[in-house]
């Protein structure tokens, strides 16, 4: 046995002993474009690591840099600075055809002159997989995406949902180490989109491949993902699980982008035991959990979700947060009522009231009401909280 062989054998078990290598790592990735003599930063420094088998979403409004970030993972864009690693290997300068990740394009980008079978077999043929194996794997994959019997169709002869599944099969059949999906459901109608969300989750569980999912649809990201990176203006605003992103938005941007959220700002009148008391008006008070950095007299922004708020005519108990306002709009939405309430302080709050017992409305338009919520359901933004 030569020294080289010995070295290899010694190194191999050691690598699997330590914590698994992330499927995808971005390290200080920046993408600059030069347009009309100006430098435009599409991505302003993104560092994140995506674990093997994870369903990871990048969520944000258009122009936030999420698609550019994904295209740098795929290899279609070269980062201006920073490093892209796939399974620990630096691929920053590796062209897309030599990266072991596959992409599902927003518009599917199917090959129009090839039928379904040829589309799905394209990647395997380029990798010179034996024809018998191609036949088997393409057949299996078409079964998974429920397209058996449509092998000879051309993309144009298929519906949007079917084209979507061809695009998925064409990428997955190569058994990539990560699958990149760029707003893959954007072109589908609502019903089909919801069905495909479930379908994607099922397929991901079945094949166990890392999914990186780019979307601007918060519901989609919340339903499907293990973790979400909320992006804005070329930066990651928050990277956390769906529950944490929704319940504890780290920034005002995240609070505003994810779901409906109510924002209230005021001065911390008193800080003790991790709770700040914010005085808003006569008889009103807001209690909010805060971190160590909040000082008395400091400005605090408080966010609270509409479904956590109770609406009532009587003054609530003293241990909850309570503010007063006037109902400006009541909308019946089937499973719940939505109230728009103008607070005395000037802010506008949205309140959801479940129609659990009866569908009667608590307050009419123009009525004066109390809004109250448990302090632990509200969060101070800017200074991260721990509960």
């Amino acid at each position, binding site marked *: 046995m030569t020294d080289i062989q010995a070295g290899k054998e010694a190194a191999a078990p050691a690598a699997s002993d330590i914590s698994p290598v992330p499927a995808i790592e971005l390290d200080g990735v920046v993408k600059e474009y030069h347009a009309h003599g100006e430098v435009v930063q599409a991505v302003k420094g993104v560092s994140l690591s995506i674990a093997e088998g994870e369903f990871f979403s990048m969520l944000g409004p258009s122009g936030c840099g999420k698609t550019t970030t994904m295209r740098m993972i795929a290899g279609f864009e070269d980062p201006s600075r920073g490093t892209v690693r796939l399974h620990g290997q630096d691929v920053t300068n590796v062209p*897309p055809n030599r990266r072991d990740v*596959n992409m599902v*394009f927003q518009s599917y980008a199917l*090959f129009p002159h090839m039928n379904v079978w040829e589309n799905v077999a394209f990647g395997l043929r380029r990798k010179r997989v034996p024809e018998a194996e191609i036949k088997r794997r393409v057949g299996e994959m078409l079964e998974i995406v429920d397209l058996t019997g449509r092998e000879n169709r051309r993309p144009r002869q298929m519906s949007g949902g079917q084209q979507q599944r061809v695009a998925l099969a064409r990428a997955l059949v190569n058994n990539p180490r990560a699958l990149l999906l760029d707003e893959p459901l954007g072109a589908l109608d609502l019903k089909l989109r919801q069905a495909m969300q479930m379908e994607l989750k099922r397929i991901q569980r079945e094949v166990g491949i890392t999914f990186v999912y780019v979307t601007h649809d918060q519901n989609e990201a919340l339903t499907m993902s293990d973790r979400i990176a909320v992006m804005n203006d070329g930066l990651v605003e928050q990277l956390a699980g769906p529950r944490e992103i929704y319940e504890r938005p780290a920034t005002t941007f995240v609070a505003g982008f994810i779901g409906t959220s109510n924002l209230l700002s005021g001065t911390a009148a008193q800080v003790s035991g991790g709770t700040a008391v914010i005085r808003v008006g006569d008889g009103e008070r807001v209690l909010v959990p805060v971190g160590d950095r909040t000082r008395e007299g400091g400005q605090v922004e408080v966010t609270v979700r509409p479904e956590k708020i109770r609406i009532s005519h009587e003054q609530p108990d003293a241990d909850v947060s309570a503010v007063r306002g006037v109902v400006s709009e009541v909308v019946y939405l089937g499973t719940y009522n939505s109230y728009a309430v103008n607070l005395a302080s000037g802010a506008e709050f949205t309140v959801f009231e479940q129609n659990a017992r009866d569908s009667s409305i608590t307050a009419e338009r123009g009525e004066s009401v109390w809004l109250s919520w448990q302090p632990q359901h509200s969060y101070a933004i800017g200074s991260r909280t721990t509960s």
Partner: protein
Amino acid sequence: MRQKIAPYLLILPGGLWLLCFLVVPLVFMASVSTQEGDVVNGFVQTFHLANFGNALGEYKTQFLRSAGYGLAGTALTILLAYPVAYWIAFKAGARKSTYLLLVLLPFFVSFVLRTVSWKFLLADDGILLQPLKDVGLLPADFHVLQTTVAVIGGLTYNYLPFMVLPIYVALERVDPRVVEAAQDLYATRRDSFLRIVLPLSLPGVFAGVLMTFVPMTADYVNASILGGPANTMIGNIIQTEYLVNNDYPAGAALSFILMAAMLIGIFAYAKALGTENVLEAAAR
């Protein structure tokens, strides 16, 4: 009622024009092609079908030469036009329309004038050959004019834009994301060109071939200006029969043989290339 008439009213002017200036002359020419006589005593309709046999027999060489020149010229235009169209479509960026205008610029000068200027360029003591002869790179009696090379060169030059434009249009319509998808699926640059870009641009090549092969084969200007007696094309023969020999039946018969051969050729070509595939890709 009015709605039913309206579409027909729209095609009426064009239809009348084609009827008067295409259908009527064609019928007239078909009739002439089977007449006998001469220009002094007049031509008489005798349904003399032998005109066709005679014309074909006498000018078989020129027919074959025209087809050969047409094929060679078309092949050359494809080779020259494809890279130009590709470059304008994918690499020219914001300057696309400028380069397209440059491709079309020769059309601002008459076809005959352009061909005549080639005669000056290629002249035995012209600006191209004389300096090369002076430095001894070419023998003193070297010439290009009055050769096959000059005629095919002229044809290729004159019809190049008709090949560049349709190929450009086809390439322009290729979705760049489809090319990216191919690269994502492990295709090398060569693979993604040969398997994606080239097949998707074939409808443009198909259209370009129709727009160059047909007029090239029927051309007579290039052969008469740049060629010699050994380069006579069928177009020159037809011109001579009509305008010099005044043998109208022979000229008409030759014209019909040329038209028929061209139509058969085009249908065979469309069939071989698979119109279905071509149209499908084009309809995308």
